[in-house]
């Protein structure tokens, strides 16, 4: 009896070892479960830093002021509600939840007028992104990712290049011929995330009830975190505010 006991402990120990070493390699901590009573979080990410005041130019009505044009891709926020565009909201350290669906229709990043469109996308690991070139001239797409294999590919007019991103990482895309052009791909290892729209709104649904840390990432403003309790079948509204510059 004692022997079996010791053996089972040893076995459990071995299993733990196996799992943890596999974890390091596969990086996959997320497991899928049924979420029959998931809650929804909707919210708004706001920018209230110094430039927000400058951005609101009463004399020019709702027109874009020059400052916001200047900072165009780096910091885009709505002048109506200060909502911040291109921020990625996600649940931090979520270990189980709804099924991950890898989009069968590949998200697209297009190069148009020497710029990447859209500027920021968030995807779940395993997603393939299609890169297009809509300009009648040569571009290249250059990444320096470490976990996902980096690449630097030249593209010509109407060319389509597909790349799959398998590991969670924040990846910057650049074009060496047009130094001002860049874009971001945020790869996450679970399906609970959203990219804010031009008014800073996001929505994340089917979250298993519980308390989680929500995280926002923005290329210029960095990270913000907030603890939020998700209640079954309820919608909770939250707000993130960046007050620095």
């Amino acid at each position, binding site marked *: 009896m004692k022997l079996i006991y010791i053996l089972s402990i040893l076995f459990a120990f071995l299993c733990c070892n196996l799992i943890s070493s596999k974890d390091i390699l596969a990086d996959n901590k997320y497991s899928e479960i049924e979420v029959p009573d998931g809650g929804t979080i909707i919210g708004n990410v706001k920018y209230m830093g110094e430039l927000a005041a400058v951005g609101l130019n009463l004399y020019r009505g709702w027109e874009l002021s020059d400052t916001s044009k200047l900072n165009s891709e780096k910091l885009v926020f709505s002048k109506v509600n200060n909502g911040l565009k291109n921020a990625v909201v996600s649940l931090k350290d979520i270990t189980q939840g709804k099924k991950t669906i890898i989009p069968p229709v590949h998200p697209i990043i297009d190069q148009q007028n020497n710029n990447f469109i859209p500027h920021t996308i968030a995807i779940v690991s395993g997603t393939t992104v299609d890169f297009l070139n809509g300009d009648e001239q040569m571009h290249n797409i250059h990444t320096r990712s470490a976990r996902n294999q980096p690449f630097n590919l030249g593209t010509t007019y109407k060319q389509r290049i597909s790349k799959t991103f398998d590991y969670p990482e924040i990846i910057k895309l650049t074009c*060496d011929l047009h130094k001002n052009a860049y874009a971001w791909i945020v790869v996450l290892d679970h399906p609970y995330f959203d990219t804010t729209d031009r008014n800073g709104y996001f929505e994340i649904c089917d979250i298993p009830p519980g308390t989680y840390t929500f995280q926002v990432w923005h290329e210029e403003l960095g990270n913000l975190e907030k603890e939020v309790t998700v209640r079954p079948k309820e919608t909770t509204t939250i707000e993130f505010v960046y007050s620095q510059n």
Partner: protein
Amino acid sequence: MKPKVLLDKVGFWCATAVTSAALMLSIAPMTASAVNIPTEVTELGKDTYKKYCSPCHGEEGKGDGPLARSMLPKPRDFTRGAYKFRTTPSGSLPTDEDIYRTISYGVPNSTMIPWDILTEEQRVSVIPVLKSFSEAFEVRKPDAPVTVGLPLRPTERALTEGKKIYEEKLECWKCHGVEGRGDGPSAAEQEDDFGFPIKPFDFTTGKFKGGNSAQDVYLRFTTGLNGTPMPSFAKELTDEERWCLTYYVMSLIKPEETKK
């Protein structure tokens, strides 16, 4: 095709290119199997690295050895696994043979000499040491080398075709300049992944860093130079077009300037 179709100016270069390419193709598999590259870090490897490589590449392979300070191009920082001269696709790690090739032939126009003063055993022994500096080799494997088709003949038509690709289709001139002097409109602002300024290669010098054979040139723009702005043009061209572009690029070599 008859010799008279060859352009006088480039005929010689292309002829040497084709013969050396043919030679390369025939000897490549032999050298690959002839050298026995160890998979584990050995004492010999560590000693050789410390003595001959670390003054430039640094004790931990960060490219920050005591001699590196005022050097440009900088000695390679091995920690990212970004190698310029490969037979593998863009972004991929190099094969062991690729690394061996660079160590044996050196990198012209830089302080990286051909390490033929070392024995073959010493040269192969440092390869696992270089790889151990980068996590990339633990999490990824090199992709399969790209296939290089049989060389086309460097005819006048091939050169015209190559010129079209260089100037119109892929716009190489934006970085390398119309005459290939590395002075295109985008040349001045280029920097590598480590933040150091880098010049698009001046083809007129003829001393290609990755080797002077047609196959070498073919491989450089097909696989790109990892860690630099030089992209890979993997999908844009057929094999035939690649040879045309290769010959055109080689036709930009100015023999007078090579002699200097």
